[in-house]
C-alpha cells in the first residue's frame, strides 16, 4: 500500500495521460484495451489508498452499465449486423467487445487522472509548466470552490419555485435561469473580493 501516484509531478502525469489517451484513440485493438485497463487498475491498486479504491468502484458501477450497453450496440449494429437480433455474428460480437473494452480503457486512464490529482496541485503545476495565466488558474479554482454552495442554491431555487406553486421538472429551465443569475452575481463579487486581496496579473 503506497501512494506514489500522488507524488509524481501533476503536470507531467496529466499531460502524459491525456496524450496517451489521445494516441490510443487511433489504435483499435481489443487486447490493447484490456492491457491498458488492466495496467490502470494495477496502478490504482498499488499506487493509491483504500479511500480511492472505493471511489473508483463507485465510478465503475455506472461505467459498467454503460459498457454493457456499448457491447450490445456493437453486437446488434456492428460488424455487418443491422438491428436487434438480426445477424449477430462473430464479427459483431468482436465489435461489441472492442467498443466496451475501449470505453473501459478510457475510463481507466481517466480514473488515474481524477483520483490521483489534487486540483490545487494540478493548477499550481499548470502555472509553472504550462504558463497558464494566473487569472485562469485562480478563476477556475474559485469557481470549483463554489461547487457545494452552488448545489445548495440550486436545490433552494427548485424548492422556492415549488413553494410558489410552479412545478419544476428535472430539465426545467427556471432553476437553471436562477443559477445563471447567481453565476453572474457571484463572478462579480468574487472577482472584486480577490482584487481587494491584491490579485494582480
Amino acid at each position, binding site marked *: 500500500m503506497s501512494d506514489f501516484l500522488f507524488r509524481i509531478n501533476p503536470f507531467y502525469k496529466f499531460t502524459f495521460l491525456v496524450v496517451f489517451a489521445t494516441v490510443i484513440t487511433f489504435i483499435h485493438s481489443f487486447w490493447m484495451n484490456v492491457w491498458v485497463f488492466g495496467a490502470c487498475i494495477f496502478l490504482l491498486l498499488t499506487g493509491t489508498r483504500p479511500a480511492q479504491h472505493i471511489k473508483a468502484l463507485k465510478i465503475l458501477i455506472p461505467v459498467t452499465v454503460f459498457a454493457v450497453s456499448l457491447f450490445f450496440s456493437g453486437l446488434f449494429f456492428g460488424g455487418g449486423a443491422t438491428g436487434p437480433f438480426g445477424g449477430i455474428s462473430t464479427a459483431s460480437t468482436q465489435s461489441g467487445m472492442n467498443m466496451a473494452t475501449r470505453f473501459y480503457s478510457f475510463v481507466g486512464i481517466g480514473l488515474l487522472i481524477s483520483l490521483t490529482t489534487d486540483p490545487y496541485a494540478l493548477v499550481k503545476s499548470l502555472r509553472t509548466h504550462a504558463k497558464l495565466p494566473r487569472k485562469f488558474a485562480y478563476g477556475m479554482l474559485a469557481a470549483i470552490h463554489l461547487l457545494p454552495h452552488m448545489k445548495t442554491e440550486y436545490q433552494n431555487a427548485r424548492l422556492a419555485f415549488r413553494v410558489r406553486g410552479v412545478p419544476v421538472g428535472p430539465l426545467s429551465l427556471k432553476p437553471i*435561469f436562477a443559477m445563471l443569475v447567481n453565476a453572474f452575481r457571484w463572478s462579480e463579487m468574487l472577482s472584486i473580493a480577490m482584487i481587494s486581496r491584491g490579485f494582480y496579473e
Partner: protein
Amino acid sequence: MKKSLWNLYVWQLKDVILASLIAVLFAVVCYATVHSVVFAVTPLVTPFGFGDIAIEFVFGIFFFSAIFSPYIMQKPGVATVVGTLTGLIQILMGSAFSSTVLVSALVQGLSAEAVFAMFRYRKFNWFTMLLAALACTVGSFVLAWYRGLWTDLDPGFVATRFIIRAVSALLISGIAAKFLADRLAKAGVLKSYPLGAKYKGEPDES
C-alpha cells in the same frame, strides 16, 4: 481591414470566473442527467442495442457553455477558451472521463468558434446560434468517429445517433441557450456585456 474586430477578448478575472461557473453548473447538471439516464433508461433499452443512444438525447448540454458564452461576450476567442475551460473544470472536478474530456471540449469550442468567425463576430442571431449548435454536433461526431467507437457500426444506426444528437444540440445549446441569454439580458443581469448593453432593466423615465 478593421483591426479592432479581430482583437481577442480581453479576459477580466470576472469573465474567467463566470465562464468557469457556467462550466461547473452545466457539468453538474450533465453529471446528474447522465447518471439518471445511465441508471434509469439505459438498462431498459440495452438488450436491444440502444443503450448508449440514451445519452445522445441530452448531448446538447455538453455544448452549452461554448455557445452561450460567445453569444453574451461576442468577441473572438470566447468559444474556444470557454469550451476548453469547461473541459478543464470537469477534470478538476474529478470526472471519470478526464482522459478524453479535454480534447472533446477543445474540439467543440473550436467548432462553435468557426461558425461565429464565419460571420466575423457580427451576427449573433437564431441562425448563427443554431448553426453553431450543429457545428458542435458535427465536430464532436467527427472526433467520436476518429476515436473509433463507431467506425464499424451499421451506418443507419450511426445516422440515427447523429440526428438525435443534432436535435438535442439544437434544442439545448441552440434554442435554450439563446432563450436563457436573452432573458438574462432583459432581466438586466448582463449590463456589462455586449448582449445586455441595450437593456438596463429599468424603465427610461426613471
